[in-house]
């Protein structure tokens, strides 16, 4: 019993249980609609792993949501609910695209400048939420939701301005090539490059058919860095203290408002970084008019929830969800079941993550029940 209780208390258990329930519910819905769940799940997994280029695309798709997941998870640890990751992403994407279009420096300058611009833009958009919370006490969930929409419409407005709009399209001009961060973009198309790749078929497929870029390395690095900041530095100690008990933190002299603001800025910066990596690393390297949210930020929410707020967990959760989102398209093409079943599945997983506070309570009761027999 004690062992069971201990296992139940580990955050990864609730994550796994939630995923299992997600699959269960999806299976029920598919069956009810007349599809074979096993076939569907088979299509899903083959859509993720069957070809090297699929796997590469999974990683590429996972990159932004690992970063936005980190963004949400970091804020979470300081008791802030950053639902605004979506807006921070959109705003930063806009800033990076505009700058990338207008500046044309050599790559060694262009890339860092654009990355910093993305981080700064995201940090600013997140900082607005932080200031409103610190100065006026307004709940960050509300202001984040408002700012998400403001960012969306602002971005659309900018996209349609003559200075930036690409004729005969719904988007802007792309950023200049010196800002690209794919892996060896010019080399891989050159004669010597193609000759080299011909000898390694899987590498050829991955390099030529997908936008392999540095984003994933950045994402993993950031996850480790965030873990270090949160658990090994005094800054992180301060932020976690504020997150766990604001009143006590205030009482011992911690500047709570400054801490909350710093947290929102860092959180926003992470989402901004995600946007920068996407614009710089993936075709078409521009932004378009958005009719609805693309969910880079909202998927980050799901990633953070299922990772239990753990920075390193975001890497795995991000890969998992990236796989679902990408491989899910295969479900429709292979067996004709609507690919929205993936959205239902992800929604269900998040729902069960919400319920999972019950699991630790059950674990407590099991542990106590044991102690009374001792």
């Amino acid at each position: 019993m004690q062992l069971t209780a201990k296992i139940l208390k580990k955050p990864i258990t609730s994550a796994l249980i939630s995923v299992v329930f997600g699959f269960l519910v999806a299976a029920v819905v598919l069956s009810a609609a007349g599809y074979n769940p096993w076939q569907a799940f088979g299509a899903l997994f083959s859509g993720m792993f069957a070809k090297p280029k699929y796997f590469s695309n999974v990683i590429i798709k996972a990159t932004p949501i690992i970063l936005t997941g980190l963004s949400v998870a970091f804020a979470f640890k300081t008791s802030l609910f950053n639902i605004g990751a979506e807006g921070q992403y959109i705003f930063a994407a806009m800033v990076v695209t505009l700058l990338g279009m207008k500046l044309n420096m050599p790559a060694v300058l262009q890339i860092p400048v654009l990355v910093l611009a993305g981080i700064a833009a995201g940090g600013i958009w997140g900082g607005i939420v932080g200031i409103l919370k610190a100065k006026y006490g307004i709940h960050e969930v509300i202001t984040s939701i408002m700012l998400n929409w403001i960012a969306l419409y602002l971005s659309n407005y900018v996209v349609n301005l003559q200075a930036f709009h690409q004729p005969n399209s719904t988007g802007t001009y792309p950023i200049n090539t010196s800002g690209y961060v794919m892996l060896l973009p010019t080399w891989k198309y050159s004669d010597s490059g193609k000759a080299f790749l011909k000898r390694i078929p899987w590498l050829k497929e991955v390099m030529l058919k997908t936008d392999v870029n540095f984003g994933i390395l950045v994402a993993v690095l950031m996850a480790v860095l965030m873990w270090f900041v949160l658990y090994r530095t005094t800054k992180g100690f301060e932020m976690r203290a504020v997150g766990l008990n604001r009143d006590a933190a205030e009482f011992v002299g911690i500047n709570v408002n400054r801490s909350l603001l710093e947290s929102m800025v860092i959180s926003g910066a992470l989402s901004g970084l995600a946007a920068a990596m996407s614009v710089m690393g993936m075709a078409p390297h521009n932004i378009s008019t958005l009719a609805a949210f693309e969910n880079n930020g909202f998927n980050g929410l799901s990633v953070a929830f299922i990772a239990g707020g753990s920075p390193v967990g975001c890497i795995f959760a991000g890969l998992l969800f990236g796989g679902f989102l990408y491989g899910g398209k295969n479900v429709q093409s292979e067996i004709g079941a609507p690919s929205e079943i993936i959205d239902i599945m992800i929604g269900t997983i998040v729902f069960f993550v919400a319920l999972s506070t019950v699991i630790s309570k059950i674990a407590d009761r099991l542990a106590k029940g044991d102690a009374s027999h001792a």
Partner: protein
Amino acid sequence: MLETITLLISITFMYSAPLIFGALGGVTSERSGVVNIGIEGMMNIGAFVGTAVCFYSGNPWLGFLMAGLAGGLLALLHAVASVTFKADQTISGIALNLIGPGFSLFLCRMFFDGATMSKPIANKLPKIFGNIKTGSTAVKNLNLDITAVLAAALAVILWFVLYKTKWGLRVRAVGEHPAAADSLGISVTKIRYTCVLLSGIFAGFGGGCMTLDIIPQYTPTAISGQGFIALAAVIFGKWTPYGAYGACLLFGFAQALTVVLGGGKFAIPSEILAMLPYILTIIVLILFVGRAVAPKEDGIPYEKGTR
């Protein structure tokens, strides 16, 4: 000139109807102490079910009713999570915003040959004076949609129940001090369940307003932010039915301006107008700093023994 004004009025009432239903749902839920961020998802499923039922049955009122039912079913999940499981209400709401549209599109593909749009319905919800063929355009514009009347009626009923009846008193007590209500024998669970279910039903009606009246079908972008504007209206209106109603009219007016002025001489870019509700809400929040307006125990699960 008269034509433009009456057109503005007509579109304002038309566009604000779904918002009002959503917002009143938000008020109902939050007054009992349960935060409901999932209004968008509930409106979405209501929008689809409403128009689909109308398409296959030919009866828009049946569609409207079913829309409410669909929203209510989704809200049941939220109620179970928030009240029985005492889960985090924000996460639950976000989950529903994923599940709702997911189901809508899934079912849409099932029932409409794999398309993500439903087929247009022949019979929309009527206007209040029926089909008027005579009269000037200005007068014809004042023939408002029936949804406007329904929405206003609901606002009045909700106000009355909340402030004049015993159930309203109990709901408000549960939102402010559930332990006090519990100690007097009032079932906090029953009241919160009821209010969350009602909020889903109202939100479902709101979705129905969209696809049974404003546009004649369901599309992936039929519900695109209305649920969040409704949330903003709840806050803007300080968690009161009449405040939320007024806020929704204001926001509906902003949307109407987009339509009426959009291409024309005043040329305020539609995107700037679209931002208006959200910017206004933030300004209002800043102005009302320090005033405790939300129900005191909003968003906090009630556990016996925590006094």
